[in-house]
């Protein structure tokens, strides 16, 4: 009997392994931001922030905050050597123009057609889409990052999203705390699983069609 325990760190850790040196990456607010802490040594990615910078650095020391230097969540950040600033039209030109290699976003629902819903629960939560729709439509690869199960026990991976979509057919990769999936031919394809979960457990606990990839292996 395997008991599900939420584990955001494994999600961030696995996503960070997709990147190669030189990749331009946009990390969403919340769980996706954690990915920045796990980029392997020797790999240098360039973080793009849609409010208008490349070369996003870590948060400043207390007392060294600059009111003119924030991330897309409005929090104080720093800029790395070689970084640069630009206006919002250029920023989204970079995004829609296909110059961002990976965008990592949080999830309310993601389905086996690659549809993503992450900006609105009608009647309940309507924060607005911010830059998410452009990021998902324009980035070369879209990674959806999410815990596998809701508090209620239902999976975040669906056959079909019910909530309003952020974008249709744009998600390439889904990483949860039980495994990593690609979206192919209208199904989730399990590429790797994270111990203690097994492919059998994952198939059983996912409300969507899953194919276990022939080379599916445990992530270490």
């Amino acid at each position, binding site marked *: 009997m395997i008991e599900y325990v939420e584990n955001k760190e494994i999600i961030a850790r696995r996503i960070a392994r997709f990147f190669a040196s030189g990749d331009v990456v946009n990390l969403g607010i919340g769980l996706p931001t954690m990915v920045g802490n796990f980029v392997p040594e020797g790999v240098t990615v360039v973080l793009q922030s849609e409010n208008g910078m490349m070369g996003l650095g870590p948060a400043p020391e207390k007392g060294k905050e600059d*009111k003119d230097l924030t991330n897309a969540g409005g929090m104080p950040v720093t800029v790395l050597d070689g970084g640069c*600033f630009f206006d*919002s*039209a250029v*920023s989204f030109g970079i995004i829609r123009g296909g110059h961002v290699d990976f965008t990592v976003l949080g999830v309310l629902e993601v389905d086996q057609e690659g549809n993503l819903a992450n900006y609105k629960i009608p009647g309940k939560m309507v*924060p607005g889409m*911010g830059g998410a729709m452009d990021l998902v439509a324009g980035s070369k690869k879209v990674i959806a990052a999410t815990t596998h199960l809701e508090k209620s026990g239902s999976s975040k991976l669906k056959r079909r999203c019910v909530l*309003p*979509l952020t974008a249709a057919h744009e998600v390439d990769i889904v990483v949860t705390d039980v495994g990593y999936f690609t979206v192919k031919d209208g199904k989730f394809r399990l590429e790797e699983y994270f111990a203690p979960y097994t492919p059998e457990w994952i198939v059983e606990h996912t409300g969507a069609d899953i194919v276990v990839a022939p080379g599916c292996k445990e992530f270490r």
Partner: protein
Amino acid sequence: MIEKPVITAAEAAAKVKAGDVVQLGGFLGCGSPDSIVEALVAAGAKDLTLVCNDTGIYNEAKGVSNGPAPLVKAKAFKTMIVSHIGTNPETQRQMNAGESDVRLVPQGTLAERIRAAGNGLGGVLTPTGVGTEVEEGKRKLTLNGKDYLLEEALPGDVAFVKAKKADKAGNLVYAKTARNFNPIMATACAVVIAEVEELVEIGAIDPDQVHTPSIFVDYIVKAE
């Protein structure tokens, strides 16, 4: 070079009349023309349409109210055209109560609609929003096998932008991520007023370092 009039924040606020479309630079308060926002609140501005990235951060308990948030609280806007309201519960309350009309626009589409207005274009074709609620009521075109939405240009009556530095001719230099929507809004409105932290003599800014050319700027306000 002709010098641009330097006016007070209160005089800047008086350039706005009821019903105007006001474009306000800034991103969650970073790069927001705060002195002018304060003056607009003091002037009792009403019935405006806001165009801004967001409606600022508003947290009563923590005493935070930045960007357009003080104006939202003062009910200055009947319409708000923004990409994000998640950090301002007062905007959400007004929307849910039907007190104001909030129109959410994808951030990149908002930027491009403003840019189009300032560049003599009727609109832009973007793939953003295809297959979502955003496409409702819009024309969809297929070019070279890819679907796009026709998004119309979004001009304004008055732009309030924030710059780090201006020379007296109105050439502007922004700081870091405080740039955001400011340069594009400065191109898209009938009247453009720049709030600046530092005002220098003509010739003191290297022409190669100018972000917004003086031609776009009508008035300068020294930040208070």
